[in-house]
């Protein structure tokens, strides 16, 4: 499929915002949905709607098959086994699941968990909560001015007290692609298990959890062209099997008496209650869509766009790019001298250009750069050079308003 035709697959993109064509550049927050995903969800409710895993009737069997088929697609997409794929609400729930079911039971007072200075709040707060409860410590791997992790520091930070690590694959506010293989290697050398937050990675670059050797890997559906409220936790099967359940309820059990309950096998052990069936089906369809274009083609297209945008924006007086890592994906965070990002956001919106302004749920990064916020443009498969040109002219217009 030629990339130029992609925009027409996304109905939301075909509209005017404040009398201008919508230029949607807030993809790190959430992506728009292709018509195939919208139809898959709507078809499910029109034709198949039923509860899964328990009905003997035809519709229930069909719904179960579609739901489990989505799980198979996801497993293949990140090169894992379907027994290792747990459906959750999103990356946030995945991290909370691991914090509660894997890390909490093994944490003792004075133990340590390592995260990094560039994490999203979702990969900070769950660890703070378990650390507070268990009187354990949170250790932070620092970043440098370019927005790259100082990996050399990791060997100094990691010790016999370190019980777990959690780190993002791609930073949502800097765009940095971290050298995950190297970091996992160091963690494993010290027998430390590690979770990779891939919420900003799977939609931009090929991800192979086996190659990375991640113990846990998670992402959200809505950032990868699927509906909100569905996400994925991958975990190594032996780890998932030894973990206690996260929530109790129907579907996660084999048998229940008042004396004793026998839990279901993984992954069902972690999917209590009726899940987001239509969301899972939508996610499976979104992955079909991505595979049709090819994740390598997407990576190449977005890298070209990011380079094009970075070069152009850098030439504008008073504009600074926040996050200049050697390896970046999709995200262009910037500031304009003497103009607050919220004013940038409002003025750009008046021209139909949707960007994000704020701290992007990464307050520690803002503190590191001593800035209150940034403006952030983030790209997806449907963006093109015309969108970037509109972004650039809109930045210039913003500067004019404040001249």
């Amino acid at each position, binding site marked *: 499929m030629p990339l130029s035709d992609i925009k027409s697959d996304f109905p939301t993109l075909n509209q005017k915002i404040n009398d201008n064509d919508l230029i949607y550049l807030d993809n790190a927050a959430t992506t728009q949905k292709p018509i195939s995903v919208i139809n898959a969800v709507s078809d499910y409710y029109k034709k198949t709607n039923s509860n899964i895993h328990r009905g003997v009737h035809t519709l229930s069997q069909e719904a179960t098959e579609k739901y489990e088929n989505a799980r198979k697609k996801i497993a293949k997409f990140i090169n894992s086994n379907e027994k290792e794929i747990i459906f959750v609400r999103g990356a946030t729930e995945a991290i909370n699941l691991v914090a509660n079911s894997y890390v909490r039971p093994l944490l003792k007072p004075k133990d340590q968990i390592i995260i990094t200075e560039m994490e999203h709040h979702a990969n900070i707060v769950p660890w703070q909560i378990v650390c507070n409860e268990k009187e354990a410590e949170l250790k932070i791997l620092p970043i440098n001015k370019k927005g790259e992790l100082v990996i050399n520091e990791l060997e100094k930070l990691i010790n016999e007290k370190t019980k777990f690590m959690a780190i993002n694959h791609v930073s949502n506010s800097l765009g940095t692609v971290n050298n995950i293989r190297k970091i996992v290697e160091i963690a494993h050398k010290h027998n430390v298990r590690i979770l990779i937050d891939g919420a900003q990675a799977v939609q931009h670059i090929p991800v192979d959890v086996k190659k990375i050797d991640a113990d846990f890997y998670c992402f959200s559906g809505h950032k990868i062209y699927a509906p909100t409220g569905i996400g994925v936790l991958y975990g190594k099967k032996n780890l998932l099997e030894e973990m206690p359940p996260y929530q109790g309820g129907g579907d996660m059990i084999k048998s229940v008496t008042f004396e004793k309950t026998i839990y279901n096998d993984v992954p069902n052990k972690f999917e209590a209650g009726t899940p987001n069936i239509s969301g899972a089906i939508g996610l499976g369809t979104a992955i079909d869509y991505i595979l049709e274009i090819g994740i390598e083609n997407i990576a190449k297209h977005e890298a070209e766009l990011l380079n094009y945008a970075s070069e152009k924006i850098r030439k504008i007086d008073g504009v600074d790019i926040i996050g200049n890592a050697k390896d970046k994906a999709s995200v262009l965070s910037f500031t304009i001298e003497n103009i607050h990002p*919220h004013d940038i956001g409002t*003025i750009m919106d*008046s021209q139909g250009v949707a960007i994000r302004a*704020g701290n992007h749920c990464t*307050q520690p990064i803002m503190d590191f750069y001593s800035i209150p*916020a940034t403006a952030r443009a983030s790209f997806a498969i449907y963006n093109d050079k015309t969108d970037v040109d509109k972004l650039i002219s809109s930045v210039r217009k913003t500067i004019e308003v*404040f001249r």
Partner: protein
Amino acid sequence: MNLDELYQEVILDHSKNPRNKTELENFTHEAKGHNPLCGDQISIQIIMKGEEISDVKFTGAGCAISTASASILTEAIKGKSKNEIEKIFENFHNLVTGNKTEEDLGKLTIFEGVQKYPVRIKCATLSWHALMAAINGEKETSTE
């Protein structure tokens, strides 16, 4: 949507050259206003003699709207009584939220354009919330 309604000349002027943006010596009350949505922080310091606010200054960092609003606030309330200020704030709040105002707000009416930008209302009211907190003897307030 007309941008000029929001970013009026006077607002831009006050955001670039805010008035009374400094620490106040011998203040009697102070409060910090915080907008957790965007991280803006405005601190208001006042000298209150009886019921009258004889002087007011502000410090902090925020967007053009919150900075200009704090700057214009300092000019609008100096020398006014607590009761008068409560009334002005009520009217100002009505103005920026698109409700009917009872009295002419003078210079403050330039914030009328904010009502078309619902996410920016809290930018315009942040300093006012901080002021009311200071007057009422509170240390901190939040727009949430």
